[in-house]
Every structure is written in C-alpha cells, then in structure tokens.
C-alpha cells in the first residue's frame, strides 16, 4: 500500500477509531461513567450526522429529535411487538430514518433558511403528536419499555457491555459518513452552501444534493436513536421533543462546521457538560445558548476549526503577497492537456463545422422591461467573441439564457447544432459549456484545488458517492482528478496556491481560479462575464495573455463580456455591441470601434456627429 493510499484509508477510519478508543477508556470507570460515556458517544454520532446537514449544507434543521424518535421507536416497536432480533430492528429503523429524511426533504428543500427551518419544525411536531396519539403501539405519553439488546443469545445488559456494543456499532456507521464528508460529496455540499449559482453551473444539482444530505443524515440519526434506546430503558415522546432538536443543533455549530471532527467533538463534549457541571444543572440550557451565540460571533467556523486554523496557520503563504508583486509562472497548456487525457477529455477543438453557439431570436422580459429583445448571435468554434454594451444592455441576461440560468420567453439556443432549450443548467457542462461570473464566484471555504476539482463537472449524486469512496482509497481515478486540477491551476499560475482557501485569495487570483475551474473540464466554449473588472491594468494584460493561450492551445471558444474596450478589442476577433436588449452592431474589432452607432451609445450625440 502506498503512503498516500494508507493516509487516505487512515483518515476514513480515524473517527471510528476514536469512538472505540473512548469506549475502551470508559471501561476504566465505574458504571455511572460508563453510562455517561455511552450517551456521550451517541451525541458524537448525532453531531457527525448533523455535520453533514448543518455544517456542510448549512440547512437549519429542528427535526433531529423527531429523527431520533423515528429510530428509537422504529427499532423498539418491532422488537417488542414482533420479537424482531435487535440488529435487524436497528437496520429497519435506519432505513425508516432514511425514508423519513427523504419525506421531509422533498417538500422542504424548495426553501432555504427560515422557511426550511419551519418545515423541519412542522415535521418535528407532527412526529411527536403521532407518537403520543398512537397509544396502542407506542404507549402514548407514558412511553414504552425497551428491552436490553440481545445478539445471538447474548444479552448486553451491563453498562460496560452496552458501551462496547454501541461503540462498535457506531464505529461501523460513522465510516460511510466520514467518507462522504471528506470526499467529493461533502465538497459539493460545501460548494453549494457557499455559492448556489456557481455550484449549479458546474453540474451540482442543488435540490438532489440537499435531499441526499437530509436522507443520509437522518439515517445516521435514526441509527443512533435505535442503538441508544435500550440504555434509557423507557422511551417517551417528550424526550425527543423540540428542545432536543434545538440543543443538538448546537453540536456542529459549536464543534465546527468544516469537518466531521467538529460534529463529533461538539456532540461528545457538549453532552458531557451537564454531567461535569452537576452543581450548575439549572443553568445548563442557558450556558448552551450563550456558548452558541458566542461561537457564532467569535468563531463562526466553530471551535474545532478555530483550533485547527491556529495550528496550521504558519504553514500558509500570506494572503497579502499579491501576485502583482511576484512573477507568475504559467505552466504550458500541454501539461493540462496531458493530465486531462486520463479523464477522457476530448481532443482540442477545431475550426470549421457548425457554429459552436447559435442564439436564434432570443427574448426575455421582466415585466415591462425587455432585457433581451430578439437577439441572434453566432459564435464560430475556437473563436474569441466579445460582447460589450452599456450597463443594463442585457449582456448578462443573454449569458444567463445561454448557460441555462434563465429560460428565454422565445427563441432558442443551439450548441454545435444541439438544441439546448430542454437541457437543464446542470447538464450543460457535460456538453462542453462552462462560465465565469461577474462577481468572482469561487467556493470560498474550499481550497483552490477542490474548487478546480469541482470544475471537472463530475458532480451527479451517484457519481459523487462513488468518487468519495474512490478518494477514501486514493484510487487511480481520484489521483488523475488531482493531477488534472493541479495542471489547470499551474496553467493559470496558481500552482503554488493549491492548498489555500479560495476565499483568502486576492481578487485577481480569484479571477484566475475561476478560469482554472472553467477550463479543467476542457470545455468547447467558455462564457466569461467581465473577467477583468476590478483588477489592475497590468493584471488585465496578463489575463489577456492567459485567455489567448487557452484559446490558441486548447482550442476553446470564448464569449467575453467586458466594458474595457481596449481589452476586448485586443483579445477578440469579433465584437457584438448590445444596447437596450438588442444587438446594435457586430463586426471585427477595428471596425466596431469606428462604428458611429457604437460611438453614439458610448460617447453620446456630439462625439457621434464629429
């Protein structure tokens, strides 16, 4: 086993190993503390499940108590009423939890923030009402007795036995969660939480990802509920109420939002506090609230992340070292070309053939405003096409129609002859179309390398899960992905910054990162929305060289929106000028600058007359 692979596998089982170690440590204490350790590792597992939903996807869920109840009752009812074996009942309860998460998420993820929180609250309330009213099955408000777990005739009645059993089960269940969070799936969640539009442009289906996050997270929470139920001896609806939901929400927030460790540590430690601070028992809830608000104020990424950052900071390049101060080394495009071959990238585009992009009489109105009015535009393969026009001319709306963010009222868009109207936004990267955004839209909390890996566009749910598993074994495919992303970063001059957080880069470097992300999938056309806005003249010149190299050596066509006429005319062969939603003129760069109509739009009446 190579050292890289060994490290990847160790990373995937480390949280489980820690859970087991804590349980074994617990054997040194008396039965009371063994009981406390058992509920503490349960909370750690709940925290790790919430790390996915709350920490990564940044959904506020107030349904955790209900999901625990689904697991606890889902396992106990078949054990008591159907004498199902313990392990089978736990498995059934986990599946039930996954289904419950899915049922909650399908209507829920149509909303974000407060509305989503309220939908989860509705779910929470309904589950508790149902449990309380189904008296024959659940014993109603009085609760129901849970027998100790029995596996293969062995009863796990003693605290020490139960602690070991639950730790072993948790250790198994946390592995898939660790793999998903550390791998591509988790990174896609963080990407969509940081910028939904950019995530969608690179093929991340936000809705399905959030549904999957709810499903996985709920399955693990229900599992924890099922495994921990026997320890309480009697379960009743009130112990899974709204306060449980709210205080579990604190686990990933206080622990840390950026990794599974935050959720684990948050859950494990916070659940210990009430036991450690017995004299202050009355104030525990208040202390929790103060801790949460203080964490959100002073350590928005959580305490584990703050600790992590404190220990790793000195290894980083200072963000202040702006790249104008250093020479930029651009790696040859040939390296990117070679690195993407392993991932099945196409040969460089050629001139000739169908137009790479053909917009035919597209229109889009917002109320009375005709943002795009009967626009037709043709872009030849491998060409550089400029698009300029005053503010509000409809350039970005046209981009949004082409890339699929906005549906045109009429007209259509073809790419190499393929009609795009019915192809969803998320699928367009697969056809070879990528874009950048007017306001640099990097995934701020991910490293540069991870940003670019997302740019590969291999971001379906199933694909993300398979890739996460592959990454846990550092397989050939995941190594090829890293190599391709490194090559793309090197090609734009960010090779040395691959491990830095994208949000820490200066603006010019963020623009470069966007370009690296847009080219790594080796698309046939890139839509660039104001690639040099807000950067210095010198940097604009360098970006022009970079874009010319990409176009020349990789054969990628580009449509470039820019206000900077000098930049545009020195980059593009053809330029279209938009004004008030229409294409005013289209010609080669020199003629467009001389065109009196264009001068009229830009410089006003007198200039045009002169």
């Amino acid at each position, binding site marked *: 086993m190579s050292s890289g692979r060994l490290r990847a596998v160790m990373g995937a089982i480390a949280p489980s190993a820690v859970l087991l170690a804590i349980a074994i440590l617990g054997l040194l204490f008396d039965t009371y503390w063994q009981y406390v350790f058992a509920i503490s590792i349960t909370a750690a597992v709940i925290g790790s499940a919430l790390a996915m939903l709350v920490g990564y996807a940044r959904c506020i869920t107030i349904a955790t108590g209900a999901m625990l109840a689904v697991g606890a009752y889902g396992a106990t009812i078949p054990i008591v009423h159907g004498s199902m074996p313990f392990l089978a009942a736990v498995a059934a309860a986990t599946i039930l939890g996954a289904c419950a998460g899915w049922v909650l998420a399908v209507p829920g993820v149509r909303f974000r923030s407060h509305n989503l929180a*309220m939908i989860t609250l509705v779910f929470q309330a309904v589950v508790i009402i149902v449990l309380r009213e189904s008296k024959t099955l659940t014993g109603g408000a009085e609760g129901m007795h849970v027998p100790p777990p029995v596996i293969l005739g062995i009863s796990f009645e003693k605290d020490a036995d139960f602690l070991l059993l639950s730790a072993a089960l948790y250790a198994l269940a946390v592995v898939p969660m660790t793999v998903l969070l550390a791998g591509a799936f988790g990174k896609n969640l963080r990407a969509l939480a940081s910028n939904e539009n950019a995530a969608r442009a690179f093929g991340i289906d936000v809705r399905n990802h959030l549904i999957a996050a709810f499903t996985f997270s709920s399955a693990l929470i229900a599992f924890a509920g099922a495994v921990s139920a026997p320890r309480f001896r009697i379960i009743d609806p009130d112990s899974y109420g709204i306060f449980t939901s709210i205080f579990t929400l604190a686990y990933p927030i206080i622990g840390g939002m950026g990794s599974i460790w935050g959720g684990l540590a948050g859950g494990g430690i916070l659940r210990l506090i009430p036991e450690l601070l017995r004299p202050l028992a009355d104030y525990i809830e208040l202390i929790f609230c103060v801790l949460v*608000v203080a964490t959100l104020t002073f350590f928005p990424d959580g305490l584990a992340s703050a600790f992590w950052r404190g220990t790793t900071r000195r290894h980083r390049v200072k963000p202040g070292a702006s790249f104008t101060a250093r020479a930029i080394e651009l790696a040859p495009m040939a390296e990117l070309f070679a690195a993407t071959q392993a991932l099945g990238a196409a040969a460089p585009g050629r001139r000739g053939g169908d137009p790479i992009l053909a917009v035919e009489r597209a229109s889009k109105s917002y109320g009375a405003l005709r943002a795009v009015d009967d626009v037709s535009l043709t872009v030849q393969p491998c060409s550089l096409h400029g698009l300029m026009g005053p503010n509000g001319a409809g350039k970005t709306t046209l981009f949004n129609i082409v890339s699929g963010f906005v549906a045109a009222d009429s007209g259509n868009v073809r790419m190499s002859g393929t009609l795009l109207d019915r192809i969803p936004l998320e699928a367009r990267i697969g056809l070879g179309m990528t874009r950048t955004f007017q306001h640099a839209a990097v995934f701020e909390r991910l490293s540069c390398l991870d940003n670019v890996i997302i740019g590969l566009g291999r971001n379906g749910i199933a694909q993300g899960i398979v890739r996460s598993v592959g990454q846990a074994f550092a397989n050939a495919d995941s190594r090829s992905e890293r190599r391709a992303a490194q090559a793309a970063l090197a090609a734009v001059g960010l090779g040395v910054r691959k491990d830095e957080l994208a949000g820490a880069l200066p603006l010019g470097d963020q623009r470069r990162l966007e370009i690296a992300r847009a080219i790594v999938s080796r698309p046939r056309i890139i839509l660039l929305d104001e690639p040099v806005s807000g950067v210095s003249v010198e940097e604009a010149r360098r970006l022009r060289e970079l874009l010319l190299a990409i176009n020349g050596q990789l054969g990628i066509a580009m449509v470039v929106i820019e206000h900077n006429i000098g930049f545009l005319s020195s980059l593009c062969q053809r330029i279209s000028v938009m004004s008030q939603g229409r294409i005013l003129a289209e010609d080669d760069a020199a003629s467009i600058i001389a065109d009196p109509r264009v001068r009229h739009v830009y410089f006003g009446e007198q200039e045009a007359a002169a």
Partner: protein
Amino acid sequence: MIVVGGLKFGAIYSLAALGIVVIYKATRIVNFAHGAFVLAGAYATYGIVEGLNIGYWPAYVLVPIAAGLLAAAVEFGILRPIRQADMFALITSTIFIGIGLSEVYRLVQNTEMLGVRNPLPGPPIFIGDVIITKEQIWVLVGAIISALIGVAIFGYAPIGRGLRAMAANARGAALCGYSNDGMNAMAWFLGGALAGLAGIFAAPSKGISPELAISMITAGFVAAVIGGIDSLRGALFGGLILGVAETFAAAYVSSAMKNAVSFLLLFVVLLWRSEGLFPEAKIRDV
C-alpha cells in the same frame, strides 16, 4: 361565539406576526426570538398588574417600551457584531437567543404558570344566543388598534421612512444620513414593542410560562408566512385567519388538532403559494 373567540386570539397573533414582519422588512432577519419578547411583555404585565398592583393602564404604556428596549438591546448587543454573517448564523443566533431568554425567565420565576387578572371583568354580553365577554371585545379591539398604530408608524411616520429606506437599500439609506445601526435598533424596538403589546393581551387568557414563547413564535411565524412575510397587511389578516382556524379545529375536531392546524396552514401556504396570500409587489433580481 367561536368566531369571536378565534378573532381574539387571531388579533394577538396578528400583533406578534406584525412584529416579526417589521423586523424582517427592515433588517431581513427572521426573528425566532420573537416568542421570548412576547413572553417578556407578558411577564412585565404580570409585574405591573399583580406585582405593583397599579392596574392595567400603566402596563399599556410601560410594557411596549420595556419589550422594545429589550429587543433593541438584543439587536445592538448581540446581533450587530454578526450582521455581516450569513443568514444561517443570524437565524440560528435568534433561535438560541429566544431559548436563552426563556431560560432566564424560567430561572427567575420557577413556577409552573403565572396568571394575570382579567383586564375587563364583568358579566358577558348576550347577543341572541351568542355570549361575548367584555375581555374578548377589549382584546380584539385593543390588539387591532395597536396593530394599526404599528402599521401607521412603519408606513407613514418619519421614522418609518428611514426603516423603509433601509429595507430597500441599506447603503443608500446610510448615504442619505440614516444611521444603519440606529435604524436597525429602531426596527427591533418597534418589533419588540409590538411583541410586548401581544404579551399584554395574551397574558390573561394564555397564562405566562415558557410555553407561551414557543406557541407565540410558531403562531406569529405562521401568521406572517400566511400573509407573505413581507407584508404588514398580510400579517394582520394572517393572524386573524390562523386564530379562527385554530379555534374551529379545537371546537369541532380535537384539541390536538389545534396545533396541527397551524402547521397545516403553514404547509399549504408555503407549498401552494410560497409568496403568501398578500404578497408585496416585488421586482425580481436579475
């Protein structure tokens, strides 16, 4: 009779919802701590009416001011430093601030439930077969008048112009001389004052306990969403609709249905018409 009873609670919900909407409109924060502000208002009412024993009239003046100051203090002291953070951080903060305030109440006043005397005792009025208590009329009329005053302040008073300006464009409002810090605190003061009024009207019939905070935030939020969370007028009607629906469900189905109906309404409105029943005209972001 059921309708009047429902409208009474509805008017209280309207007041609570109105506070949520005022804060949301001005600062874009959905305040999950609002239930705790209502609880604070109810507790202050208890202090004035039962503790100091000086009757109800001072409460109508002092309680809104106290609750408003509490809300402004929460905004200024806790939320202001994280206003630049994302929605996630702001909303979770208000959730935990709300729970924290309820906990403070529980620690200070460790009893099951406090009662406040009826503001307008006296024999009920008979209109045909219908029995209406004076308290019902008083709460209904009083709450609606308070709500209208709140709407008038936000919609027409000079202070309201600043709040609306900030709602439209915070930076623009700042450039025109409205201090954002001041305006934020003012919005929370106004929202908190409305919550305080809801507390005065709710205290005699609902009793005072941490449960009040939970039930008022749920009802207020549902009412606000029914009305379209951006609309003051909508919040008024949303509260009345919710109050009547809840009372009918409790009377004709079961008391367990009373909670379920508000969730049902929320669910239906969100899924079927997520902009609410009374949406404000809005320009889409392009």
